């Protein structure tokens, strides 16, 4: 019988404990400190992962893999960069590896169903608006399937999330000019895919 991770924080709202302290405690084996890190960063990890890989069914497995990788890597975390940067490098590595596996056909790639797309729609919208939004998102993710994983990640970080080139380069372990080039190529490929009309992606 496994002990469930405490959902509620063990510290009060006023206890401002920075990520570095929690990371050191978690690296020393403090599972509660790791639970605090998990709760603090789960939303951002889930949102970024969803934008990069799409609302695929295997997102939960990838989230689990990301936090397990973080737990294993925490003893090597020296604090040179922010823990957020350290964590989101893991996120993008896991996402790109998953996209590469999917493009090579090793991972399961099934068409997105309405239930998966429903997690991305606005909660307060009318049913008609939600249906139209789902249709639009399905078409968008089909276009994104044409991109290579590196270009897709760079496009998502720079064009969609609006990160500066330097920040995106730090997350993707590349230079800023390389990221800029990837975004330009991604825009060109996406425009060509949209000009072709009906997408032929595998999403």
């Amino acid at each position: 019988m496994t002990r469930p991770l405490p959902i509620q924080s063990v510290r009060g709202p006023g206890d401002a404990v920075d990520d570095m302290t929690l990371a050191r405690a978690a690296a020393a084996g403090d599972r509660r400190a790791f639970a605090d890190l998990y709760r603090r960063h789960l939303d951002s990890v889930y949102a970024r992962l969803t934008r990069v890989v799409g609302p695929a069914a295997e997102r939960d497995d990838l989230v689990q893999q990301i936090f397990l990788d973080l737990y294993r890597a925490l003893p090597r975390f020296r604090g040179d960069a922010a823990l957020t940067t350290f964590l989101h490098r893991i996120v993008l590595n896991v996402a790109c590896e998953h996209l590469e596996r999917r493009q090579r056909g090793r991972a399961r790639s099934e068409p997105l169903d309405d239930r998966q797309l429903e997690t991305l729609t606005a909660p307060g919208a009318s049913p008609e608006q939600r249906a139209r939004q789902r249709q639009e998102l399905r078409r968008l993710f089909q276009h994104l399937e044409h991109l290579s994983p590196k270009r897709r990640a760079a496009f998502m970080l720079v064009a969609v999330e609006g990160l500066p080139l330097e920040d995106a380069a730090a997350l993707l372990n590349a230079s800023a000019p390389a990221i800029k080039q990837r975004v330009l190529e991604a825009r060109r490929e996406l425009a060509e895919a949209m000009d072709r009309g009906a997408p032929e992606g595998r999403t």
Partner: protein
Amino acid sequence: MKAADRDSRIENELVAPLREARPTLDELHRARLAGAIEAALDLEKQAPARRRAPRPAALGGLLAAAAIALMTGLTWRPPRRPTPPARPAPATVARDLPRTTPLLVPYPGAHQGAPKTGASTSLVALPGERARAARSTMDRCRPTMFFSSALRITGTISPFSSATAMPTLTSR
């Protein structure tokens, strides 16, 4: 299409909807993810070496691939060439044949080589020599010529006449 038009189209049709999409997690989903991560961490804590070990699925795949490779190696044959016309099989020595009763039994002393035979004119047999006939058995049995001297000696025929001589009593 100009680059500006292309970028504006991508911005309107692709980037803006993606920005509006907000993946959200409800509490149940969070709890389920937290439970899965906690279980995985407990599993790692119990068996830290298992993480480095190959997964059972991968190990099974490796074993299956090795078995297939082994079977393929055993049953593989090089591509056949056009078979040349059949040649008569070379004679093989008897030791390669199964042990059966030999039809030709070597005579004792065969290991000493071919038997020696003396000269046909010699009347003395050397030790170990085979008896040797001057004429073959068939030649000796077949009457090739009429030997008339015996009849002359016995007076059956007359040397002076072809008629048979009759014995006559003579007195002195």
